[in-house]
């Protein structure tokens, strides 16, 4: 039966082998995130926010418990199904942008649409729309090394948003940016959240990001400390 939550976790546990023992990164996380939320996982390094983001993004699987993303149980997805979920429904924004250095801005943003096998005309329109959202229509031919950090992250946002995903996962998106660029990026994401009703889930400990979040989920030692 389908539910109204985009993300739902039940007693989610993730532990990693560390020498002869185990390090528990997530220790019984129960979390529900609904459609259109602008939420963030907040906590210091090692609190488990990136691990949780990776599991929600079907890049990793839980040790026990379950994470259901867009009605799909992550632990039960095989590699092809997980790739399909990411390809069709999820957008990723990374701290270090993770743009393809040898591709230009247009090609970077076009990439998710190529995976979806869209026609050339459709791709072109969608890419130009996405670049318009982030204000980079004049940089289509530029390559990432020719862009500033802020511009790179805007390209990354355009790449994450171009296919209009249901959920965008952003891992420390402003960590490498100055204050002005951070605010610009966050305003862009807030606008996209409002206009496209896309759900955003951040992993951050940056105060600049926290002040934009509508829902703040504080993690400490792999547990939810506070959800407000």
């Amino acid at each position: 039966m389908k539910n109204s939550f985009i993300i739902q976790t039940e007693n989610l546990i993730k532990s990693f082998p560390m020498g002869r023992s185990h390090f528990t990164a997530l220790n019984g996380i129960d979390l529900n995130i609904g459609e259109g939320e602008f939420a963030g996982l907040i906590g210091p390094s090692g609190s488990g926010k990136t691990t949780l983001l990776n599991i929600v993004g079907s890049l990793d699987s839980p040790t026990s418990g379950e994470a259901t993303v867009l009605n799909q149980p992550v632990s039960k997805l095989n590699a092809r199904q997980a790739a399909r979920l990411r390809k069709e429904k999820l957008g990723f924004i990374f701290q270090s942008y993770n743009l393809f250095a040898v591709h230009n801005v247009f090609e970077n943003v076009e990439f998710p649409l190529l995976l979806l096998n869209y026609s050339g005309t459709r791709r072109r329109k969608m890419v130009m729309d996405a670049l318009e959202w982030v204000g980079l229509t004049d940089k289509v031919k530029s390559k990432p090394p020719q862009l500033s950090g802020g511009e790179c992250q805007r390209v990354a946002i355009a790449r994450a948003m171009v296919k209009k995903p249901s959920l965008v996962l952003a891992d420390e998106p402003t960590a490498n940016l100055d204050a002005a660029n951070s605010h610009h990026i966050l305003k862009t994401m807030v606008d996209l959240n409002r206009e496209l009703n896309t759900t955003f889930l951040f992993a951050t400990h940056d105060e600049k990001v926290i002040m934009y979040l509508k829902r703040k989920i504080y993690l400490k030692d792999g547990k939810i400390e506070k959800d407000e």
Partner: protein
Amino acid sequence: MKLALKLAFRNLIGAGLRTWLNVIVLSFSFVVIIFMKGVMVGWDHQAKTDMTNWETGGGQYWNENYDPYDPFTFSESHAPIPSELDEEIRTGETEPFLIVHGTIYPQGRMQSVTIIGINPDQDIFMLPSHKLDTISDAIPAIIGSIAARNMNLGIGDHATIRWRDVKGMFDAAYIVITDIFSCNVPTVDAGKIYIPLQKLQSMSGLDNEATLFTFRDSEKPRPDISGWTLKTKSELTKSVDDLIKTKTTGQTVFYVILLLLAMLAIFDTQVLSIFRRQREIGTYIALGYTRREVVGLFTVEGAMHALFAALVSAIYGLPFLAWMAKTGWTMPMDVSDYGMAIAQTLYPVYSAGLVVSTVLIVLLVTTVVSYWPSRKIAKMNPTEALRGKIQ
């Protein structure tokens, strides 16, 4: 696959100099392999054509006792011309040859020679036998350039030859060199003296006898003739096939080394790519690729080097190969002493099959070499790859 090709193309073009260095190394392999193979094919063609034109014709009948490698059989290897060949001999489609072992004394020295009686009017071979049709104070003779050099004889020079007639009696006479020919088949040249057939028949007391017959038409069915062994053209040129086979084996080692060097560059690039592009690999997976698809992408990228190399080869290789086919490859040293049918200048012959097979082999090897290190991606943890952590 279409997407992998598109992305691989973008990645390779985007990688710039690194791609083109590999491509140039690989293209060099293409051109050298095609050229060297072309030389072998050209040599094969040339050697067989030369042997046909100078030594074997369209095939031969040998006297059953004749062994070209044993001069001591020559005294026994002759017989009257069989009536079955009369008509063809009359029309010039078959020519008789008489072979006698003898000795020449050029300028007081002594050398063993093979004296061959040949019809001055024959036109099956390119030998300038018409130069034997002359009136002179001595027996007219033609020799090849190697024989001329070895015997230190020139046109117009006289020398004494000695032979044994059919009864075993020694006899001697003067010969005069009326022409010196140059040919690429050393067995026609070295140690051979050509004189008129009728003269040799009368000198040796073997009137109307011959050692072998050469016919022009290799396609015509030939009857079995008692006392004579039929040698087809392919049998007579088998030595060339064997020689080419031996040389080809040697060349294969050279190709393998050349390919290994090119493949080492590709392998090195692939291994470096997988280490250096961890974050990119993680991003591919995050955006919706499976690890298997990323392996495919990297393999296509590697294999595409071979396709680019084929194109680059076409740019500079086609003019080069065409030029070599036209001007030929001249050996850096005199090849007349090599003892095999080889021209001073070899003209490479390229076929579509040669080019296509070379491209396919290089493409296949490049694909395998590209896939080999790429398999590591299948074992990568995408979350660690995203952070650029070396795995």
